[in-house]
């Protein structure tokens, strides 16, 4: 089943345009409101890294569970993972914005704040970047190995690469659970260095899985509408929806559990995070996140009829992509910008990163056959029906 994806010239120009918009808006942002621009930079970076990580987790889960249905579509999450090296470079550029974002990098704050002093062996700039390099290095190495096996399998066949991939997937799941949690703590939770929550990393990880599954489904649907993936049927769509549905429930559960325990225990060093966000736009976003990321997918995707129809899935997917943005916005903005500012800078930088991500993903998709050729579960995936 040879299927070649060629990046359309129009699409390529569109992504260049989007990247230009993003570059210009960020540049103007750095000139006029550098703190807000850095907050945008961090949010968008984290948004698309979590998509890549979620996609890597998706691949690993398929291998470990020996899932048959998804074999034909595995090039899509693989392409999403190929964004990781780009994201790594962009994250290292955060070095120049540390002072605008992270309170714990301020010398004067460190001298008067006992808690920051206590945390400084972990939260200091050199160690922060050492960890970043380690995290991205581990992710890139493991996912590149999986990608290499997958592409070689196309030419050589046999079960050898499948077993290797399965073994690497087990390692990847373990590594992701550990490193992405620490990464979430480093990149986002340390924006409020006085606050801590054990469930925070788990929640962010589930958000990554949730939104990566939505984007995988979206890319598959777009490619299907363009004439690729002819074997896509309602059962595949249903399985994609089950992933979104499941991750949405787990996210809702984690989000609620985090809030409820802090609310119930009522300890000032934990509650201030939510107290700060209990007025104005933040209070609206608190409920908006729950409605968009949990309530709407839960109700809309529950019936069998809706969960296997593209016209229902696509709006929910778009809504969830907005939901991931607002969730990160809800966490990052009160800690850095201290005001609910939303304007051309936010829209422009998000469009820029979307363009970059789409370009990298499309390029990666065009580099190998769109449908893997010798995957042992390919037959089962094509004939999938339930």
């Amino acid at each position: 089943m040879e299927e070649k994806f060629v990046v359309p010239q129009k699409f390529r120009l569109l992504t260049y345009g989007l990247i230009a918009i993003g570059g210009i808006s960020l540049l103007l942002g750095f000139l006029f409101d550098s703190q807000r621009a850095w907050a945008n930079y961090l949010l968008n970076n984290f948004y698309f890294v979590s998509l890549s990580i979620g996609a890597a987790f998706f691949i690993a889960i398929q291998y470990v569970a020996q899932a048959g249905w998804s074999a034909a579509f595995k090039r899509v999450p693989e392409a999403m993972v190929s964004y990781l090296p780009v994201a790594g470079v962009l994250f290292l550029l955060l070095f120049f914005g540390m002072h605008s974002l992270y309170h714990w990098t301020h010398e004067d704050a460190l001298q008067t704040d006992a808690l920051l002093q206590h945390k400084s062996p972990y939260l200091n700039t050199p160690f922060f970047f050492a960890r970043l390099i380690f995290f991205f290095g581990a992710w890139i190495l493991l996912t590149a190995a999986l990608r290499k096996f997958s592409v070689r399998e196309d030419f050589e066949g046999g079960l050898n690469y499948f077993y290797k991939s399965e073994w690497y997937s087990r390692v990847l799941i373990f590594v992701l659970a550990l490193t992405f949690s620490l990464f979430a703590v480093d990149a986002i939770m340390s924006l409020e260095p006085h606050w801590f929550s054990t469930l925070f990393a788990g929640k962010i990880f589930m958000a990554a899985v949730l939104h990566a599954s939505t984007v995988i489904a979206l890319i598959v649907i777009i490619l299907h509408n363009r004439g690729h993936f002819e074997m896509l049927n309602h059962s595949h769509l249903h399985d994609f929806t089950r992933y979104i549905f499941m991750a949405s429930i787990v996210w809702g559960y984690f989000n609620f559990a985090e809030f409820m325990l802090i609310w119930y225990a009522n300890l000032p060093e934990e509650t201030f995070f939510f107290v700060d966000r209990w007025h104005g736009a933040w209070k609206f976003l608190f409920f908006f996140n729950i409605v968009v990321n949990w309530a709407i997918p839960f109700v809309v995707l529950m019936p069998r009829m809706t969960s296997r129809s593209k016209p229902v899935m696509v709006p929910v997917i778009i809504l969830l992509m907005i939901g991931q943005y607002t969730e990160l916005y809800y966490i990052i903005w009160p800690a850095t910008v201290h005001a609910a500012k939303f304007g051309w800078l936010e829209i422009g930088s998000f469009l820029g990163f979307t363009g970059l991500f789409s370009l990298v993903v499309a390029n990666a998709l065009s580099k190998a056959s769109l449908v893997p050729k010798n995957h042992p579960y390919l037959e089962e995936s094509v004939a999938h029906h339930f």
Partner: protein
Amino acid sequence: MNKNYFTGVFHDEESLVKAFDRLKEAGIKPEEVYTPYPIHAILDGMGNKTRITHAAFFYGLFAVIGLLSFMYYVSVIDWPLVFGGKPFNAFPSFIVVTIVATILVITLATLFTFSVRAKIFPGKKAEIVHPLATDDKFVMLFSDTIGKEKEEIVVNIIQEHGEVEK
């Protein structure tokens, strides 16, 4: 034991599905088909859509509303007590109980619904239409009430693919 039904026994999936399709062409549907494992063609062909999922959804909805209003009644209206400075209507802490109790309500209510609809109860004697229906054979069940003419068609079709047992 007086039987008011007759069965068609098949040895493999292929002959069962062939016979099933030919019966469908003749406009006849078996009362019931017993297979060792689920077969898509039969599941679709029999067209028996279960509505128990809808029932479960509404049990869950009623359970959530009922449990939340019960807890509201208990802790706000009937016997308000202050726990650790919490408001009487400590809504977030009600949700945990609601989730767990809703799962219990849905499980038990759907179990009873299923038992009533399928007429299954403890101590009931199993109705086995054919000794091999619980084994590796594929068994179709027909009621005698379908009439002589149709019965003849059915018997003819089944005999081409399997055996008829009266």
